[in-house]
């Protein structure tokens, strides 16, 4: 036989018009994966990077050693936060369609990631999110109107009109600024965690990137520094299968799991059902305890599905089957937690409907307030002078001059 080198091109399981195919997703039964001691050495627990930690089974029953045994109020709160995230996303998507905001990105189908993880952390822990982690703001109690004002670039925008919609930050809530440049926050979170260790504080850091972004060098910088200094950090790869049109195989997911990059660097890597609120909570709690007790960093791969378009500028019908999410084997995180609560006798369809209606109203009321502070092209506007602030701490002479020139230009136009 004539053997030759060949160029492999990752396979994409299904394209538009084809039947969705998720046979490539390795699943473990709920409750089946062992839960190692939080102080286990990374080299002894590499099975966690291969298996899939799941707690909720298909009937909504919670099983196995990762069951976090949360009290009912926590579960109901988790459901509320996830539902609010979704209602907020839907409403903001609509306002973009109406031309009120310039751009939006939903987290549909991935709500458990941000919500369960933020709930499993402490308020003093520092979060370095990506653009699809709006749920962390919801959990930390950020007023929705604040998020909306950022989306509107209006007079109450915490970014003073400088960032694209969804690029929030929140100093008081310990949520770092979102960058448009992918993956940059990952090694920064490691540095933050190193500083916490240097200062002898027990706060930890957590960061999120998409599996697509894990291709960037910054991902590898993060793992290396986390490993070398055993930094108290949780590094999350949200494997929602798609990076705009690019399937996860092109980020290296075809040959090995993303979690398996952890053991490669000598840090714990763990693969979890990202649509299972209980499993995500439990795994995050485990990783946080490791970090807080000196057992070092953890890389978590959250297996989920980007049910929505990448952003309001994207049309996924061009590159994947339309009914993909309906066939996604890990289901919908909200439906699964709801099913679990109903099974416990602590929730019902009626209560769910009532909650939805309440949250719709909450979002609508916040929107009503937010637009009174202005919209991109209507109502009160930020002073354009602000453009020159914060480039430096103090305005240097050349920017003072340019600001004068801009004022003259505006005066001329009016």
């Amino acid at each position: 036989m004539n053997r030759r080198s060949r160029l492999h091109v990752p396979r994409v399981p299904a394209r538009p018009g084809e039947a969705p195919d998720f046979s490539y997703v390795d699943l473990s039964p709920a409750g089946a994966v062992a839960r190692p001691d939080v102080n286990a050495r990374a080299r002894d627990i590499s099975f966690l990077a291969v298996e899939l930690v799941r707690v909720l089974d298909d009937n909504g029953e919670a099983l196995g050693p990762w069951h976090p045994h949360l009290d009912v109020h926590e579960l109901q709160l988790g459901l509320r936060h996830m539902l609010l995230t979704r209602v907020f996303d839907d409403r903001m998507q609509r306002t973009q369609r109406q031309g009120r905001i310039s751009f939006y990105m939903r987290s549909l189908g991935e709500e458990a990631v941000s919500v369960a993880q933020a709930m499993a952390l402490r308020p003093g822990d520092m979060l370095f999110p990506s653009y699809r982690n709006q749920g962390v703001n919801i959990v930390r109690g950020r007023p929705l109107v604040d998020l909306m004002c950022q989306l509107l670039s209006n007079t109450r925008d915490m970014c003073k009109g400088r960032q694209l919609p969804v690029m929030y930050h929140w100093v008081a809530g310990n949520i770092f600024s979102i960058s448009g440049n992918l993956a940059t926050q990952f090694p920064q979170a490691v540095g933050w965690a190193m500083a916490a260790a240097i200062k002898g504080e027990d706060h930890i850091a957590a960061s999120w990137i998409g599996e697509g972004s894990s291709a960037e060098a910054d991902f590898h910088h993060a793992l290396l520094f986390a490993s070398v200094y055993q930094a108290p950090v949780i590094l999350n790869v949200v494997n929602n299968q798609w990076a705009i049109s690019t399937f996860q195989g092109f980020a290296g997911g075809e040959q090995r799991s993303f979690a398996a990059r952890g053991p490669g660097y000598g840090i714990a890597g763990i693969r979890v059902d990202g649509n299972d609120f209980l499993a995500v909570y439990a795994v995050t709690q485990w990783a946080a305890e490791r970090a807080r007790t000196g057992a070092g960093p953890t890389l978590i791969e959250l297996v989920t599905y980007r049910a929505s378009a990448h952003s309001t500028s994207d049309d996924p019908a061009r590159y994947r089957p339309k009914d993909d999410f309906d066939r996604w084997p890990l289901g919908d995180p909200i439906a699964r937690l709801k099913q679990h609560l109903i099974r416990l006798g602590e929730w019902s369809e009626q209560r769910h409907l009532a909650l939805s209606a309440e949250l719709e109203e909450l979002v609508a009321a916040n929107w009503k307030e937010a637009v009174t502070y202005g919209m991109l092209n209507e109502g009160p506007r930020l002073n354009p002078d602000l453009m020159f602030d914060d480039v430096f701490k103090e305005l240097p002479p050349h920017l003072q001059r340019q600001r004068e020139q801009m004022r003259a230009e505006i005066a001329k136009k009016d």
Partner: protein
Amino acid sequence: MPQMNMIQALNSAMDIMLTRDPSVVLMGEDIGYFGGVFRTTEGLQRKHGEHRVLDTPIAEGGIIAAAIGMGVNGLRPVAEIQFADYIYPGFDQIVSELARLRFRTAGDFFAPVTIRTPCGGGIRGGQTHSQSPEGIFTHVCGVKVAMPSNPYDAKGMLIASIEDDDPVLFFEPKRLYNGPFDGDPNKPAVPWSTHPKGEVPDGYYTVPLGKADIVRPGNDLTIVTYGTMTFVAAAAAAAMGLDAEVIDLRSMVPLDVDTICTSVKKTGRCVVAHEATRFSGFGAELVALIQEECFWNLEAPIQRVAGWDTPYPHAFEWEYFPGQARVTTALKAVMESA
């Protein structure tokens, strides 16, 4: 002649080069099956195959490094960086490697890589989808830097870039993809089909790098510009009734010094305009050069028009953009000086 917008013209250039030269390969994020977020490579993977049009991981440093390796091994890679704002993870590979490979190996190794990337603002992209970083790269010795302002040039210049044995950074002003833009966002969009430079031959042709285009001949003053500002500056001069000679540089490296200086020596007045930030921008190079070469012909200090020296702000896009008002101020200053 066929009408094309800039996206179609660029697509046609790549299609032709993939067909003519088996060593040409395309690579980039979302460019293959999907055809690119601006649809510039639409249909090319289907036509030329998955080994010629590669979807890549999201790793600009990796894309450019791999393109260099391919180039060294006889291919002619055309790498797309999805937005110029995302070129920086590849900065070291461009500055330390791509630009200097020929020099440090005394010509024994080289990598004929073209890096295409959409640049510029005016699409509400905020500070990470609006930058014009071309000036940073003109400061690097060993890469050519080009920016077309219309479909005809875009196609011919991209073919010339791909055929060039030196690396080329090819900036595409995305605000011009679908039509010329005079700087007024409130006017209805004008398609390329209404513009003579939207007439683009179907077949192969080149527009050489290093040859500026006199977009409009004139005698009152010279406007030296490129990219989106070509239209903005010409419109501002026309609105003032000035007989301006408008020069579209097309490429900054190499630079067509002759065309610039011949014009300035004729008119005695000059405005330099680009969308990129002002401080240490490419305009500063132009002003220095014109001053050195044309000092005794100048009737007035040369004026510069540029973006403010701040990141591109989402909410203040049109206060930031160097529109007609900013150009007019510069034109007045250069015409009024005795």
